């Protein structure tokens, strides 16, 4: 692969980008309004009220349809560079999301998130190590699954694999299991959230803790409430998600220490120190997000529009509108990376372990959010 810069790659990315943009424009301007007004089973807007399909889920579905139906399982080369940019779009959206918070709000939400995320990460790692050993899984497979199930899905599997000498097949089955579970929970969580009458705060805390993969956390939050503003599901879930991302280097360190304990290190020692892991695995976009929080707290964009305070400034309103589009574009692209062939073929012990731990975590997170609902503070 040639190492060219962003602007050299841009012309090659244009066809894919154009498809993404056109898809989202059609969804938001025609498909979603049509679904909102269509009368199905004698009810106006049944498609939206019952299925909770908004532009976010429709975008992901369209991405999946492009890949798996229209293009027969593989994105054509002419479109693939554009779809690759979806990762950059989502990162940009998350950085802009920093404009929803002031430092006070971050401290309030973050302290709750640290408590919940920290507890669940530790509990899930212990559960996977125990169940994985009981199921007789290979140690490297257990290591990958421990972090993928406890921290943030595919990102954690990618970060952990080299350190625990995971075989390609182990990583692949772990990723397929996590993605399959993530996609399922992305579609059912808005149903459950609305059926139980969860508030945005409760819902965001639940899915931020219980859904395994970060892309699906973002989508499930926006599917529950597409508004991007302080106190909405996405503003809560993404703080939870950022806490998970920050914990990646620590979780990788803990699992590699477990993996190498009582084992001879090969090739001069593959285990890395925590400092090295922090430098190598820390996601840079989190710094961008915090930078945005700093600028927002300093009033660089005007009033944020917190509950009980002055209304949001025009700049902030415009940035929030951009975010809804950027997330929409990004999630069409992410849908294009979901390959049904890979998910259908997942199976065996990783699937068993993934289902046991994934379902336990998902349900337990909901129970805990209910139990601590009086301690959850809205921003």
């Amino acid at each position, binding site marked *: 692969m040639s190492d060219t810069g962003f602007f050299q790659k841009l012309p090659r990315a244009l066809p894919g980008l154009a498809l993404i943009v056109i898809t989202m424009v059609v969804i938001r301007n025609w498909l979603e309004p049509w679904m909102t007004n269509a009368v199905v089973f004698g009810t106006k807007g049944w498609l939206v009220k019952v299925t909770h399909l908004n532009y976010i889920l429709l975008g992901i579905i369209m991405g999946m349809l492009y890949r798996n139906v229209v293009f027969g399982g593989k994105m054509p080369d002419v479109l693939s560079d554009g779809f690759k940019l979806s990762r950059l779009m989502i990162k940009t959206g998350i950085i802009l999301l920093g404009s929803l918070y002031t430092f006070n709000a971050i401290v309030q939400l973050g302290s709750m998130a640290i408590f919940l995320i920290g507890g669940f990460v530790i509990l899930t790692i212990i559960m996977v190590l125990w169940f994985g050993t009981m199921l007789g899984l290979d140690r490297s497979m257990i290591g990958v699954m421990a972090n993928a199930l406890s921290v943030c899905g595919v990102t954690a599997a990618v970060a952990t694999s080299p350190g625990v000498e995971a075989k390609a097949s182990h990583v692949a089955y772990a990723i397929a299991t996590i993605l399959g579970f993530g996609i399922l929970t992305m579609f059912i969580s808005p149903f459950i959230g609305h059926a139980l009458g969860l508030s945005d705060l409760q819902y965001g805390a639940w899915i931020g803790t219980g859904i395994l993969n970060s892309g699906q956390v973002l989508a499930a939050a926006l599917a529950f409430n597409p508004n991007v503003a302080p106190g909405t599901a996405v503003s809560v879930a993404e703080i939870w998600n950022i806490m998970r991302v920050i914990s990646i280097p620590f979780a990788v360190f803990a699992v590699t220490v477990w993996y190498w304990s009582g084992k001879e290190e090969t090739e001069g020692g593959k285990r890395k120190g925590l400092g090295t892991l922090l430098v190598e695995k820390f996601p840079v976009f989190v710094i961008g997000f915090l930078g945005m929080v700093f600028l927002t707290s300093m009033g660089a964009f005007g009033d944020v529009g917190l509950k009980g305070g002055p209304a949001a400034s025009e700049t902030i309103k415009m940035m929030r509108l951009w975010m809804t589009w950027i997330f929409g574009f990004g999630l069409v692209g992410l849908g294009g990376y979901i*390959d049904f062939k890979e998910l259908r073929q997942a199976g065996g012990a990783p699937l068993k372990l993934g289902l046991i731990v994934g379902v336990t975590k998902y349900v337990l997170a909901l129970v805990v959010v209910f139990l601590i609902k009086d301690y959850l503070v809205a921003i």
Partner: protein
Amino acid sequence: MEFKNIVVAVDGSEASQEALNHAVELARQSKCALTGFFIIDGGWPDFIGNDWQSSKGARQEFLDYIFKEQESQAEAARMQFEIAAEDINDRRFSILAGDPAEILIAQANAADTGMLVVGQRIFQVSGRPSLRSLSKRLVAKATRPLTLFP
């Protein structure tokens, strides 16, 4: 039936041993060339495409790690081929890279392929779950003679 060239997919694991033994025997009987090949799976960047959070370094380290793993597997495949086919003079082994399904189908339709011999579980060592259905796709699309082993 005589062949000019027997082509066999080899992955260095037990999944390809029986097919390899058969291909060697067939080449001996037909006194023809034997071509073995391994495919380095190029589908990994796309497979982890859903991960938008990893830093560029973490992503590249992972892809390098998977590539290195597959290079070792390719060497194991080459050894497996050389040991099984040591008495065949007209033999060659190549390491290809790309989508295993596309390359296998191309081999199964190439004009110079006398017969393609493949184990049903071939290249599952490379990891991606969809490789489990390689042989089914191959059967549907091969136009040259094909022998599949369980």
